[in-house]
C-alpha cells in the first residue's frame, strides 16, 4: 500500500463513550477536523526543486543592497523599497547563529523523530539564517554538542521529496575533511553510530543483594502507582512490555491499559529494553526523585528505541501524579 498523508495509527475508530463527573453523564465522541491539499510551493519551487533534484541550496540576493536571504523568501527586498532579488546558490557549510533547542517531548506528528534539534544556520555566502533539523552521528542529541557558532554541514536525505525534511545538518567536527568538502553529501555517506545495547559488568554478590533490595522498593512504588487513580489515568489505553536489565539482575515492567506491574520474570518479546547499571536510577525516577527522561538524556539509562521516550514520559508522569496526590492530601 502506498504511504498515506495521515498514517493510520493516528486515526481513531468511529465511536463515543460516556464520562461520569459528579454523578452526571457527559458524551464524548471520537472526531477529526481534516482538510487535504494540493498545495503549491509557488515562488519557492526553485528552492525545493534544487534540493530534491540537484542537491543545491538556493538563496536570493537583493540587486540593490546585496543582502542574501536563505531560504529565498522574496522576489523583492522589503528593505530596499521592493527592489528585485535574484536567485543564487550558497555554500553547504555554515554556522549556528545561536544554541539550538532540543525537543525530547514532541507533538504527535514528530514523536518518531524525537529527540531532534532545530536550529538556525547561516550558510556560507548568506546573511540570514534558515531553520533546519540538527542531528549528531553519535546517538541521542544532548545539550552541549551544538552551540552558538558551531560549524555544521548540510546533509541530504537519500530519498528526497522536495520538502525541508530532505535536508538536515550535523556538526562538521563529526565528519571527515572529505565529507565536509563534498557537495551534496548524503545521509548514506555518513557512518551513523548504531544503537548497540551497552554491556554490563559481571555482578558481585553485593550487586545482586543491592538489586534484590531495590527491586522490592520498585515493586512497592509500582503498586502504589497502581492504587492511584491519577497515575492509572496516565497509562489508560497504553500497553508496553519492558525488559529492564541492571548489573545485579533483570526484571520486567508491564503496562496494560491503566495497570502497571513490576515482575521478577523476564518478559517474552519485550516492546523495548532498558539498561541501567544501577537499578537506583530507575527507582529514583519512579519515586519522583529526578526524571527518568533526564537519565536517558544523560546516558545513565539506555533504551533500545528512541520513540519509547513516549513511555518514559508516561512513567515520569505517573511518578508526578503519585507525588501530587500525596501533596493534595496533606493540603486538605
Amino acid at each position, binding site marked *: 500500500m502506498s504511504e498515506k498523508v495521515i498514517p493510520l*495509527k*493516528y486515526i481513531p475508530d468511529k465511536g463515543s463513550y460516556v464520562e461520569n*463527573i459528579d454523578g452526571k453523564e*457527559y458524551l*464524548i465522541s*471520537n*472526531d477529526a*477536523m481534516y482538510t487535504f491539499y494540493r498545495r503549491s*510551493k509557488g515562488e*519557492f519551487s526553485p528552492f525545493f526543486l534544487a534540493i530534491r533534484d540537484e542537491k543545491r541550496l538556493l538563496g536570493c540576493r537583493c540587486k540593490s543592497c546585496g*543582502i542574501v*536571504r536563505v*531560504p529565498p523568501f522574496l522576489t523583492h527586498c522589503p528593505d530596499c523599497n521592493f527592489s528585485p532579488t535574484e536567485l543564487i546558490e550558497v555554500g553547504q557549510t555554515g554556522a549556528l*547563529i*545561536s*544554541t*539550538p*533547542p*532540543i*525537543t*525530547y*517531548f*514532541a*507533538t*504527535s*506528528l514528530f*514523536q518518531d*523523530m*524525537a529527540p531532534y534539534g*532545530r536550529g538556525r544556520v*547561516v550558510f556560507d555566502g*548568506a*546573511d*540570514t*539564517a*534558515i*531553520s*533546519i*533539523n540538527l542531528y549528531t552521528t553519535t546517538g541521542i542529541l544532548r*545539550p552541549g554538542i551544538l*552551540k*552558538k557558532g558551531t560549524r555544521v554541514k548540510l546533509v541530504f536525505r537519500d530519498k528526497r521529496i522536495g*520538502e*525541508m525534511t530532505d535536508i538536515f545538518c550535523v556538526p562538521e567536527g563529526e565528519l571527515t575533511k572529505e565529507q565536509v568538502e563534498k557537495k551534496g553529501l548524503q545521509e548514506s555517506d555518513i557512518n551513523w553510530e548504531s544503537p548497540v545495547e551497552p554491556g554490563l559488568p559481571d555482578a558481585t554478590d553485593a550487586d545482586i543483594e543491592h538489586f534484590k533490595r531495590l527491586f522490592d522498593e520498585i515493586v512497592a512504588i509500582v503498586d502504589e502507582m497502581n492504587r492511584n487513580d491519577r497515575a492509572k489515568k496516565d497509562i489508560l*489505553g*497504553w500497553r508496553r512490555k519492558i525488559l529492564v536489565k541492571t548489573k545485579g539482575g533483570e526484571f520486567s515492567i508491564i503496562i496494560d491499559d491503566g495497570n502497571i506491574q513490576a515482575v521478577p520474570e523476564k518478559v517474552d518479546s519485550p516492546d523495548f529494553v532498558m539498561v541501567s547499571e544501577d537499578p537506583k536510577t530507575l527507582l529514583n525516577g519512579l519515586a*519522583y*526523585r529526578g*526524571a527518568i*527522561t*533526564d537519565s536517558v*538524556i544523560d546516558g545513565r539509562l539506555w533504551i533500545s528505541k528512541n520513540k519509547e521516550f*513516549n513511555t518514559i514520559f*508516561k512513567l*515520569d508522569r505517573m511518578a*508526578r501524579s503519585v*507525588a*501530587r496526590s500525596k*501533596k493534595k492530601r496533606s*493540603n486538605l
Partner: protein
Amino acid sequence: MSKRVGIVGAGVTPFKGRWVEKTYYELAQMATREAVRDAGISIQDIDAVFYGIYNDIFERAAIPEHALHGLLGMQNKFGIRITTGGATGAYTISAAHAYLSAGRFRTALVLGVEKATDCFDFSSMSATPEVIKSIGWSGDSFFEQPIGWSASDSYAEVVLAYMDEHPGDLKPEITAQISSLLSQQVKTNRYAQRQFDQVTPEEVMNSRMVVYPFKELEICVYTEGAAALILAEEETARAISKASGKPVVWITGVGEANEHSFAGKNQKIMSRIMSDYYASRRAYEMAGIKDPTESIQVIELHDAFVHQLEISMAEFGLVPLGRADSLIEDGLMLEGGKYLVNPCGGLIYCGHAVGASNIMSAWSARNELIKRGLHTALVHGTGSTVAQYTVCLILEHE
C-alpha cells in the same frame, strides 16, 4: 481627542485542564455572566463584543465566535474576533480600547475563551501531544512546520540565544525558585488550574526535560476556560462605577509590536524579545511613565516559560538585561519586594487558556490594584513564533 477607557467589570470561569462538563459556548457565557454581574449592568447595556479566541482547531470550528454572539444576547450589535497567537487576549483588549477611545462605542465586552484538551492523540493515548500539534500548525508552513516547529522549541530558541549572550543569567536554580514562588502565589487564586500544586525548587530542578532548556515545571500548562472584561469610555465608566460601587481601573497605556518571524541580518535578533521592548516603551509613553522601575507595582506577565518571564522583565526595563536573576537574588519579586509579579500564579500555575489568558491577567491585575490599594500595573501578552508578538497594557487605579 481620544477618550479615556476603563475597566468596570470582570469575570473568569475556573481554569481547568479539561472541561468535560462545558463546551466553549457555555464557558463564554459563564465568564460574561460574571463580568456583567460584577459591573452591575445588563448585557443589553453592552454595545460591542471583542472576542479573543486563538485557535480554530481547539474550538473545532472556523469563525468560532459566530455562535457566541446571539447566545450572549448580542445579536444585531458589533462583534469582531482577534487572533494573534499567545498574545490574543492582550490584543483583544487593545482593540476594544481603540474603538472605545475613538468614541465608536460607550461600552464593550472583551471576551476570551478557549478549549484545548478536546484534542486527543490516539497514537500515544494522551491529549498533550495533540494539543501541541494543534499549536504546531501556527509555525511557518513552508519551512518550519515540516521539521518539528513547536511553541516550546521556538521560545527555547530565544531563551538559548539570550543565554549565549548572558551566560551567567537564567541560572537553573533561579528559574526553579521562580516557578516554586509562583506555585505559592497561586494558593489564593481559587479559579486556578493548579491552586494546590505547590512545588519546591528541588522538584522543579528534578522535573523532566521537555524541550531543552525547559523543564516540565517551568512551562505553562494547557487550559480550558474563559475570561471577560467590561470596558467603558470615561463618562459611562464613571456612571457604572458610581452605581456598582467599584472603582474604575483605567487603561492609560497600550503598546504593541510584532517582530520578524525569521532570524539573521535585518531580521529577528534571536537573543532579544524586541517586541517586549517596543510594546512596553510605547505603553509607558502613552501612560506618561518616565521610570517604570518607580511607577510599576504589579506585573501580570504572560509567563509561557519561566526563562521568558525573566527576559521579559528585563525587556520591560524593570531589571537590567543580563541581570534578570536579580528578581530573586536581590529579592525584587520575593514577598515584600519591589514588584508583585503574577499574583494569580501566572499562566504556569493559573493556566493558559490561550485566548482568555491575558484577559484573566487583566482581571487579576485589576483585583490586586483594588484589593491592595496600589496604583499602577503592567499587563503583558506574548505570542507567535520566537516570541514575535507583544502587547503591553498599563492599568491605573485612581
